[in-house]
């Protein structure tokens, strides 16, 4: 790890004020310290934000406001989250390990970086780590990489589970920075790599996430988070599906669907969601939506399997949501 100075912030203004070139905020540290050990991150200054008064979970405009420093465990086990946003709870609990979730925070989870092997290996080129150096994942080892929305500069994926649920729930990210506060719709928070793969999000330098706000609609009856991975726990998603439906009898009235492990951001397809609305909640309907989504897939040399995996996961996820039988967190059989 490189040498750095350490500042402990007591207020958001102090944290923002302490920011400068080469500075990083640190929350749970579970991603940043890891990256520092690989010398992928070499901050000159760490601003410890864990003591900011942003740890609470509060009622907010019919929904909930999750403080940026609320840990992943705290959010997942909050009784209101379990009752009103079980999709979010399940997505969080599908990620990492209990130890990591005890440390990891809401804000840090949003800003965790890709698990692309080359990004982590400071001895290889990588456009995300060193703009302009190239992308060895293209044509290289890319089994875990994107099949949607990639560019010829970067094919990395966003690794979060929590964010996939937040995308489906259409949360809002509230940030505070040198120019004051603003609210960013979840779909606009993470970005596609395009020509600037070094930028994961639309957050500006020095801006700090202060909360994630959940709208009232929680899809608490018909939802699932289905995560497919190389081992059954403690592994990142190859493909995951967050699905939320509202039904009138057998007819779908609202549909939300976000995919993880397949793109540089939680992947949504509004056209497919629109296609579901007004249709009977049947396998045929779900297959049509899945076909529409995977029609856009552009697999890499080693991850062609993700296309069919995604198609099937979408159908199965929508079936689980429609039936009100979400994927179990402990019994790993896919129902």
């Amino acid at each position, binding site marked *: 790890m490189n*040498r750095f100075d350490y500042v402990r912030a007591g207020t958001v203004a102090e944290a923002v004020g302490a920011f400068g070139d080469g500075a990083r905020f640190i929350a749970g540290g*579970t991603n940043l310290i890891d990256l520092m050990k690989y010398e992928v991150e070499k901050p000159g200054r760490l601003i410890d934000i864990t003591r900011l008064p942003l740890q609470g979970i509060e009622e907010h405009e019919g929904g909930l406001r999750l403080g940026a420093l609320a840990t992943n465990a705290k959010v997942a086990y909050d009784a209101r989250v379990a009752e009103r946003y079980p999709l979010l709870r399940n997505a969080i609990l599908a990620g*990492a390990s209990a*130890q990591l979730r005890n*440390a990891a925070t809401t804000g840090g989870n949003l800003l965790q970086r890709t698990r692309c092997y080359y990004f982590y290996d400071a001895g290889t080129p990588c456009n995300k780590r060193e703009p302009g150096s190239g992308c060895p994942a293209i044509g290289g080892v890319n089994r875990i990489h994107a099949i949607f929305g990639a560019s010829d500069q970067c094919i990395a994926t966003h690794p979060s589970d929590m964010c996939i649920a937040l995308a489906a729930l259409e949360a809002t990210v509230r940030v505070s920075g040198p120019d004051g506060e603003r609210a960013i719709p979840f779909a606009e928070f993470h970005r596609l790599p395009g020509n600037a793969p070094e930028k994961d999000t639309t957050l500006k330098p020095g801006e700090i996430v202060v909360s994630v706000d959940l709208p009232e609609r929680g899809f608490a009856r018909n939802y699932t988070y289905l995560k497919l991975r190389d081992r059954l726990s403690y592994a990142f998603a190859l493909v995951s599906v967050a699905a939320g439906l509202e039904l009138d009898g057998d007819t779908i009235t609202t549909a939300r669907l976000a995919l993880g492990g397949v793109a540089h951001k939680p992947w949504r397809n509004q056209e497919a969601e629109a296609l579901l609305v007004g249709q009977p909640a049947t396998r045929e309907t779900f297959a049509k939506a899945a076909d529409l989504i995977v029609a856009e897939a552009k697999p890499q040399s080693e991850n062609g399997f993700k296309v069919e995996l995604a198609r099937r996961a979408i159908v199965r996820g929508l079936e689980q949501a429609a039936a009100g039988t979400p994927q179990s967190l*402990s019994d790993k059989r896919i129902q």
Partner: protein
Amino acid sequence: MLLDTSPPVSADTPIGITLTINGQRRELQVAPWTTLLDLLRERLDLTGTKKGCDHGQCGACTVLVNGTRVNACLTLAVMKDGAEITTVEGLASLGERKGSNALHPIQEAFIEHDAFQCGYCTPGQLCSAVGMMGEGHAHSRDEIREAMSGNICRCGAYTNIVDAIEDVMQHGAAR
């Protein structure tokens, strides 16, 4: 052990912190880049806590910080100023027969159920199990397995580890 009197690791940027480690209050000078794991092992000679991967991927370094299980390898010591830390060396003092030299019930159960082979993952498994029981979210065998999945055992003692934990959850105080 008494207060730490060793010189600061780095002359230019040591930071004074206070930690209560296994019930003992310690005033320490640490460089900000020191992980809690390295502080425990390299400076305080508490080598019960193990370093497996140093990257959050194995759970060998699991300790309790204010009663909550975390990976000490991904924790900076300075950030835990004021916290209470329990390592495997201090588990016995959390058991019911506190004060005697008796082991914590989970330690006894691990011996009884043969829940380890090489023992490298064991301190982490033990701290993790105590943390898990405190959290109170796991009840069934499947739930214990999932809740303990952050602790890898290369010897594959998993079945017996779950047996040991189940035993303590069912008969905890009676053991």
